[in-house]
């Protein structure tokens, strides 16, 4: 059955929204700092870049994934001090891994609605607190009755999705492995990276099997980390900088919980979320109109899967883009120039640091060694999560 089209949106926002500062901590398997301290580092850096102090912040948005990682119930309350949430309106959003881009989307509507002019968006994840392994927390994401009795590991669903993608589109593992090779190499230029290294396709194909077809080097490593963004109204942005980066489109979409009832080869939720964002940003041909992309890449096949869902390639053709080098940093459509989750690390929601923050840095030409070769004006970041259900998309532009 055809999924119904999202109803026409009106887009009569109160004010335009710009990003003027971003910050992130190191992404490492285990950091000594508590979640609060990580938040503090990220926030301090973002405010420093924006040229603001915490007193200028009117409202705070926190994005953080399962409480089970930190081992704290209602962790937004626990994390509030480091995030700058004391003595101001403070709210947490959580859409699984999709939080990495949903938190900035929430920041967007906090400002666009006119409720606040300066909004601080903070994302935190402290996965290492969970024992024996961060994956243990994922035991509790499954359906109580249908899945949990089978004692599933998190990787299963992705392995199933990857196999389906490979089968339907006739894609080979070596074509997918190229993504891991590219992203891990890109990450060599990222100061916060966790597992940046020069590897080859053979390394990926010969790495330790986890849940085949997923092997160790197909997966991004669990990490601790935090990231922050400063989002402001247009009139504030004018005071702060000559080169703000504007948010021109947002979109998100959540698919059914019955994940075993969907054909996993194509992410229709990503397509729907992109449709919403493209409509808002007046984008009709993403491949031509968007210059740099940061799709969510916790697994190498996911980058390809998402590129197809977002409309950058036809179904099954994203591997060709990768093979031809189009998605390299000096290519025509740089994808994950930061190194992505595969290279920098995957602290679930704090992946905002390599998604939304990276697009902001790329569009303001401040990504340093990671800066893509081509001239950029519009960028897209995307995140994904839950039971392979949700996609969140944000489009930014350095032209208003």
């Amino acid at each position, binding site marked *: *059955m055809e999924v119904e089209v999202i109803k026409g949106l009106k887009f009569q926002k109160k004010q335009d929204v710009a990003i003027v500062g971003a*910050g*992130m*901590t190191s992404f*490492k*398997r*285990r*950091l*000594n*700092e508590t979640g609060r301290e990580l938040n503090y*580092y990220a926030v301090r*850096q973002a405010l420093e*870049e924006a*040229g603001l102090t915490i007193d200028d912040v009117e409202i705070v948005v926190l994005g953080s994934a399962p409480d089970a990682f930190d*081992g704290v119930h209602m962790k937004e309350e626990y994390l509030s001090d480091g995030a700058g949430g004391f003595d101001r309106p403070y709210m947490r959003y959580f859409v699984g891994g999709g939080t990495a881009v949903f938190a900035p989307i929430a920041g967007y509507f906090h400002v666009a609605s006119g409720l606040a002019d300066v909004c601080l968006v903070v994302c935190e994840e402290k996965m290492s607190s969970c024992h*024996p*392994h961060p*994956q*243990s927390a994922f*035991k509790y994401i499954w359906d*109580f*009755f*249908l*899945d949990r*009795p*089978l004692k*599933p*590991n998190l*990787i299963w669903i992705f*392995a*199933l999705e990857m*196999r*389906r993608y490979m*089968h339907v589109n006739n894609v080979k593992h070596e074509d997918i492995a190229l993504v891991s090779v590219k992203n891990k190499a890109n990450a060599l230029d990222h*100061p*916060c990276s966790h597992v940046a290294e020069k590897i080859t396709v053979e390394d990926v194909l010969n790495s*330790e*099997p*986890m*849940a*085949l077809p*997923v092997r160790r080097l197909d997966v991004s490593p669990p990490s*601790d*980390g935090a990231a922050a963004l400063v989002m402001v109204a247009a009139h504030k942005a004018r005071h*702060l*900088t*000559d*080169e703000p980066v504007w948010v021109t489109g947002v979109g998100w979409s959540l698919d059914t919980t*019955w994940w*075993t*009832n969907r*054909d*996993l080869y194509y992410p229709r939720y990503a397509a729907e979320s992109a449709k919403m964002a493209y409509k808002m940003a007046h984008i009709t041909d993403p491949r031509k109109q968007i210059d740099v992309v940061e799709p969510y890449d916790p697994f190498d096949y996911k980058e390809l899967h998402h590129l197809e869902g977002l409309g950058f390639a036809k179904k099954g053709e994203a591997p060709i883009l990768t093979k031809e080098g189009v998605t390299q940093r000096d290519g025509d459509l740089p994808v994950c120039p930061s190194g992505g989750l595969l290279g920098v690390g995957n602290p679930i929601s704090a992946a905002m*640091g390599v998604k939304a*923050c990276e697009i902001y*840095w790329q569009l*303001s*030409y*401040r990504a*340093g060694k990671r800066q893509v070769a081509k001239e950029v004006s519009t960028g897209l970041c995307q995140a994904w999560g839950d039971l392979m259900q949700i996609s969140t998309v944000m489009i930014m532009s350095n032209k208003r």
Partner: protein
Amino acid sequence: MAVGKRKIECPLYAEGTAVSEEDIKTRKVTHYEDHPDIRYSWTAGQAISRFLNGLKEGKILGVKCDGCKRIMVPPRMFCELCYKPIDGWVELKDTGTILTYSISYIDPDARPLPKPIVVALIQIDGASQNMAIMHLIGEIEPEKVYVGMRVKAVWKPENEREGSVTDIKYWKPLEG
């Protein structure tokens, strides 16, 4: 106040002190351990209860919706696409087709399993396109599993069934 200088390279600096697993074990890093005891007893609800009771009797039950004409499994009380109550129950076959599979080497805590297991999405015969459940595959070498393979449920003996998805031990290749 002015930012936006092109020369600044971001992120400004990488903060955070990396520690290793070893540091925790040897208590080089100060930490506090907690083993929360939080227990739940989830009510299965009407649809899933009936499904689980069906398994106890050796039947796989699905539901149908006259709106979108789908026959769905796992069953639900309402069709999520048409957003209306379902229009009845159907008994499905205990055979199916593998839509996708994985050979898993790790347990839920990411520890290695003694022997890899095969997990698959099995489209149940009698249900609509893509109506699958996740389950295990047995009685076959992992390398020999393929997408499109026909499989049949292997049930636990009747007296051992308890109304759980594990009442089906696993699915085995359907000969012929």
